[in-house]
C-alpha cells in the first residue's frame, strides 16, 4: 500500500488534491481510499487529507500515521504545531513542499527528516492560471508524479474532480495543462517501499478523577481569541490604499474574523495579526482600494 498525506489550509485544495490522486489510482485499477480531516470548516485553518492506494482491500481508515509521501501545500504549516506535519515522518518519507526554495535550502531550515522535493506551485498558479488559490490540480499532479501514477489518469482525474466542483471546461483544461507541466518538472525522489518495523503496544493510561474546574471542558477567552495570531495562515495579504477608499465599510462588514475596524475618520484599518488572508475584503471592495500582496516568511511576521 502507498499512503499519501496532504497538508494545506482550508481553501487551498488539499482535499481536492487527495481526491484527484484517489480517482487517478482508481482509474488505473487500484483500490483507493481518500478522506479529508478538518474541524469546523474555516478558510485558512490547517486541514489534512489522506489517500491510500493498494492492490488489495484497505484495512485502514482515517489519519495516516506512517505516510510514504507528505504533500505540503503551504510551507508555513511546517511551523504550526496544530498541523501535525512531522507526525510519522522519518528518513525514508518523501516530503514535497510548495515553495520557491530548493529542496536543499528548505532542508537546511527545518529539523524535519525525510527526503525533500519542492516546486513553486503558488508562483506557477499565479503566473499561468491567474488564480491565487487554485493549486489543487497542481498538488494532485505532483503527488501522482511522485507516487508513480500515469499522467493520463491524473489528467482524467483532474477533469472529473474539478467538474464536480463546478469549474467551467476552459478553466479545467488550463488546469490540466499547467498540472501536466508540474507533473513533468517536479524533481522526483524514489519512494521507499521497504517494510516498516512493527509497532510496539502503546502504554495506556486511565485518567484519574479531576474536579470540574479541570475535568469539565471550559476555556478562558484570552488564548482563544485576542492573543491568537493568525498571521501565519496568510499566503496573501490585503493592503489598503486609503486614497482610493470611499468609506463604504463593505470590507468591515464582510471580514469573517473581525480583523477590520473603522477609524475615527470613517476609513477601515486592517489588524494583521487577526487577518487570515481570505481576501473576502478584496472581493467586495467596489473601488479596488484593497490590493493583494504575496506573503513571505519575513512579511508574515511584520
Amino acid at each position, binding site marked *: 500500500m502507498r499512503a499519501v498525506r496532504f497538508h494545506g489550509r482550508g481553501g487551498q485544495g488539499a482535499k481536492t488534491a487527495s481526491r484527484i490522486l484517489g480517482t487517478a489510482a482508481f482509474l488505473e485499477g487500484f483500490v483507493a481510499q481518500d*478522506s479529508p480531516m478538518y474541524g469546523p470548516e474555516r478558510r485558512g485553518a490547517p486541514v489534512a487529507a489522506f489517500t491510500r492506494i493498494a492492490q488489495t482491500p484497505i484495512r485502514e481508515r482515517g489519519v495516516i500515521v506512517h505516510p510514504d509521501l507528505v504533500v505540503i501545500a503551504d510551507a508555513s504549516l511546517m511551523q504550526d504545531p496544530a498541523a501535525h506535519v512531522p507526525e510519522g515522518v522519518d528518513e525514508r518519507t518523501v516530503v514535497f513542499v510548495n515553495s520557491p526554495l530548493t529542496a536543499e535550502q528548505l532542508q537546511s531550515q527545518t529539523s524535519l527528516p525525510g527526503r525533500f522535493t519542492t516546486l513553486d506551485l503558488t508562483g506557477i498558479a499565479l503566473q499561468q492560471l491567474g488564480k491565487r488559490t487554485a493549486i489543487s490540480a497542481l498538488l494532485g499532479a505532483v503527488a501522482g508524479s511522485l507516487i508513480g501514477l500515469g499522467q493520463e489518469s491524473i489528467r482524467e482525474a483532474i477533469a472529473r474532480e474539478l467538474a464536480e466542483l463546478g469549474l467551467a471546461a476552459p478553466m479545467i483544461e488550463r488546469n490540466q495543462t499547467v498540472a501536466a507541466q508540474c507533473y513533468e518538472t517536479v524533481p522526483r525522489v524514489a519512494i521507499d517501499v521497504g517494510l516498516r518495523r512493527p509497532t510496539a503496544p*502503546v502504554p495506556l493510561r486511565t485518567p484519574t478523577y479531576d474536579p470540574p474546574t479541570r475535568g469539565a471542558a471550559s476555556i*478562558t477567552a484570552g488564548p482563544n481569541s485576542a492573543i491568537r495570531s493568525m498571521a501565519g495562515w496568510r499566503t496573501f495579504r490585503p493592503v489598503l490604499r486609503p486614497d482610493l477608499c470611499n468609506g463604504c465599510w463593505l470590507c468591515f462588514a464582510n471580514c469573517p474574523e473581525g480583523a477590520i475596524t473603522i477609524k475615527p475618520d470613517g476609513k477601515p484599518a486592517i489588524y494583521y495579526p487577526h487577518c487570515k488572508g481570505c481576501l473576502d475584503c478584496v472581493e467586495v471592495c467596489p473601488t479596488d482600494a484593497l490590493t493583494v500582496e504575496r506573503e513571505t516568511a519575513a512579511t508574515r511576521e511584520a
Partner: protein
Amino acid sequence: MNADMMTGNLAAAWGARLADVDYVPAFPITPQTEIVEALSVWCGNGSLNARFVTLDSEHSMMTAAGAAAATGARVFTATSSQGLLHAFEVLYTIAGWRVPLVLVNVSRALASPITLEPDHNDVLAARDSGFLQIHAETCQEVVDSILMAYRIAEDPRVCLPVMVNLDGFYLSFTREPVSLPDPKMVQAFLPPFRPTHLGFKASAPHALGTAVFGGATYSYFRHQIHLASMNALQVHEEASVEFERLCGRRYDVVEGYRLDDAEDVLIMTNAFASKGKGAVDAARAEGRRVGLLRLRMIRPWPADAIRQALQGRRAVAVLDQNLSPGQGGILFQEVAACLYHEALRPRALCSFIGGLGGKNISEGEFRAIFEQTAEAGINGQGIGPILLYTEAEHREMVQLQVLAGGLKS
C-alpha cells in the same frame, strides 16, 4: 462492474435513489448534510421522482417522515448526533405506528463537550426505540444496507422503521470504490411498497397510535413491536440470500473475520472494524490466533449468531465506541448477557472503550488490546472497562488544559 469513487454520504443518497423513494423530509447537520444535498439536487433535476421538503427541525422532520409513511409513501431521511436526539420522542412514536421507513444516521459523538467526529452514543441511545438498526463498515455496505433495510422494513412480518448507521468522517467523508446495484436488479429485489395496514382515504379516516389505558392493551401492542423486531432476524436472512443471488454480495447479521481457529476474538462495529481486521492480520502474522466478530445488526440483537461465534473461545474483547457513564460499554453488557447461559462460554470477557469522539485507535492500541485479552484468557478473569487513551495523548491533554486555563496553572 459499474463502480466509482464515492463517499459514504453519497452512497447513502444513492441507496435512497435506487430504492425509488417517494418522500424525503430533510434538515441539515454535519456530517450528514451531503446526503440531503445530493437528494435535493436529484429531486430538483428530476433524476429522482420524489418530493423533497425541508423542515424546521429534526423533530418535525421525523414527524413528517412517519406521517408520510403512514399514507403509504416510501420515505427516506437522514440525520446525525444532536439531530437524532432532537427527534427522539418521534422515533418511539412512529415505531408504534409500524411505518417501515429508512432513517440513515451518520454517527457523531454527542455534546458536551461538542465535537463533529464519530462515536456511537448517538445511534445506540435509540436502541430501545423500536427501530431496527444496521451498522455499516464500508461505503459499499451503506448503499447495499439501505436497499436491504427497505425490504426488511416493508415485510409484513416486520413493518418497523430501520436505522442504517454509518460513521461520520470515517465513512461519511471517505471515498472508496462503490459498485452501484443495477436499477433493474433493485426492482426485482424491492417490489413496490403496497402496505395493507397503511394508506390514506379522505372517505375513511382513521387514527394511528391511539391512546390506550389500563396497561394490558399497551402491553399487547408493545409486545407486538418486540415480536416484529425479532422476526427481522429471519427476514434479514432471506433478504441476504436474495441480495447475494442478485448482486453477489453477502451480508449477515454478524460478520466473522479469521475466526476459524481463533483463540481470542475482538468484537467491533462500524467503520473502525476495517482497522480491527488490519490489526487481526498484523497479530496473525506474529502467530497470535485472533479473529474479529463484527456486529452488523444491533436491533434485533442477533444473540444466537453471537453465541455461536463465541462459544469455546479463550477470551473475548468487546471494543465499545460509546460510553454509558456509571456503567461502561453498552455492547459489552449485551454481549455478556447473551453469553450467560452458554455452556462453552469464553473464560474471560474484556471491555475496552475506544474511539470516543473519533479518536484514532492506533496499531499500538490494538496490540495492547490483544495482549491484555490473551492474558485475561490465561488468567480466566475478565477485565475492564479500559479506556483506550495513551500516555502521549494525556501529555497533550495536560498542555491543552494549561492553555484553556489562560496559561495560569
